[in-house]
């Protein structure tokens, strides 16, 4: 049984590498997506790529390799130890590292390129617009989909309760309810992320306002869909848990193999879909001309990085002198920290019961 799960952990890890190669190529092309006159969203001088720009670009490409440099020794250690299930945790950690590293890297590269920008392009636009059109989570939710998720969760939990009370002396409470509770907690987190994505607004330049708003709306819908796909996956996990617990030893191996194979296919299909969708979003984003927005809060004077405390500036992230800084005076920061603390506490509780 364990051999099969280990095999799938290795397969997922290999798949993760394949996906990353594609991601590396995509991120590598990102600075030049708008053509040779641009470096990401900075309108650069014509000789940029023959001079200092070349070095900035190379440094950006080198920074993209940081997650690989972290990954290889850790993966070797995991394979050496034989605890192959740790590969799943490695994948999760690397996903976070790749995104944080990329965001930081893009911001740093743009800041390095700014001194070589076309001077007129570096002037912030004078007029910005903010859409006040009300947006509610329910406007971006599919009631049928939500009903299916709710019914599936209730059914799975009812089944688990029945399973547990059928022989409470033989079943461990944490073993029966642990995984579903974690998955439900993740569901809750995803719902909260959806709410934040729906409420998120930023000003757009008044010139080309409709194009910018369209690009943001499409991006918003994309991230909400990604959240829903993950919520569906979490619900499928909750639904499968009582099935897994009720399996006879004879059928366990084959059902688990089928289940993991399904997820492997789902991951491959999901990755392909995500790439297609990303290309569509890039096409829409390229219709908008990047501009510098006015710094109404003098954020660029904030020297603290990567965290700061600015109670009068209610944003989550502030673009300070050294890049984006997490504002500790924001409610979302507190809620995010409380959520992560809850997740750690939940894992600790479940481990204690082993």
């Amino acid at each position: 049984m364990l051999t099969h799960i280990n095999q799938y952990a290795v397969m997922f890890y290999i798949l993760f590498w394949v996906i990353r190669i594609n991601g590396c190529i995509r991120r590598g092309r990102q600075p030049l997506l708008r053509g040779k006159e641009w470096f990401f969203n900075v309108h650069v001088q014509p000789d940029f790529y023959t001079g200092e720009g070349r070095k900035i670009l190379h440094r950006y490409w080198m920074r993209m390799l940081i997650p690989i440099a972290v990954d290889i020794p850790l993966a070797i250690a995991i394979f050496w130890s034989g605890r192959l299930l740790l590969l799943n945790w490695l994948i999760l950690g690397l996903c976070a590292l790749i995104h944080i590293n990329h965001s930081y890297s893009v911001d740093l590269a743009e800041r390095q390129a700014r001194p070589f920008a076309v001077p007129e392009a570096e002037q912030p636009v004078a007029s910005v617009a903010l859409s006040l059109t009300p947006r509610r989570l329910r406007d971006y939710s599919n009631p049928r989909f939500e009903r299916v998720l709710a019914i599936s969760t209730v059914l799975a939990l009812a089944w688990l309760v029945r399973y547990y009370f059928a022989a409470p002396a033989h079943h461990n409470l944490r073993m029966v309810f642990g995984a579903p509770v974690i998955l439900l907690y993740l569901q809750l987190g995803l719902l909260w992320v959806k709410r934040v994505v729906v409420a998120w607004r930023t000003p757009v330049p008044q010139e080309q306002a409709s194009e910018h708003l369209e690009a943001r709306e499409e991006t918003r819908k994309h991230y909400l869909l990604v959240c829903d796909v993950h919520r569906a996956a979490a619900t499928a996990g909750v639904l499968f848990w009582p099935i897994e617990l009720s399996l006879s030893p004879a059928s366990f191996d084959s059902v688990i193999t089928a289940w993991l194979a399904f997820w492997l296919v789902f991951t491959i299909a999901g990755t392909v879909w995500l790439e297609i969708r990303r290309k569509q979003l890039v096409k829409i984003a390229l219709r908008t001309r990047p501009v510098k927005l006015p710094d109404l809060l003098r954020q660029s004077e904030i020297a603290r990085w990567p965290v700061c405390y600015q109670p009068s500036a209610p944003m989550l992230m502030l673009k300070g002198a050294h890049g984006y800084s997490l504002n500790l005076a924001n409610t979302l920061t507190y809620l995010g920290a409380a959520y992560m603390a809850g997740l750690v506490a939940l894992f600790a509780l479940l481990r204690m019961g082993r």
Partner: protein
Amino acid sequence: MLLTIDTNDPRPIYQQVADGIKELIARGKLAEGASLPPVRQLAADLGVNLNTIATAYHELQKDGLIVVKHGSGSVVASLTSTERSHDELVRPLRTALTELVLAGLSSSKILSMVVRELSTVGKESK
């Protein structure tokens, strides 16, 4: 339903926010009872100081255009409930007309300008 801020505009930002919301109310885009974003949220969205939005909302409240409900945010007040005297209503009109006269515009030009602006506002209001 766009709220615009122009850094070249001589008016302070809080005034631009207040005037922008007033315009949206006048055009009927923010109907009676419509919720306004909370002060903190609007300040975060626009990237301005909390006090800027708080001052703008205070001005709108003073003019009787919004009702601030503690704990549940602000909503657009009923336009008929604004108990403002004739003098209070005429004063901003007189100020605007004085500026146009001082800018050297003829009465007929000012009148056509007023009619055009009024029709723009009226067209979009209910």
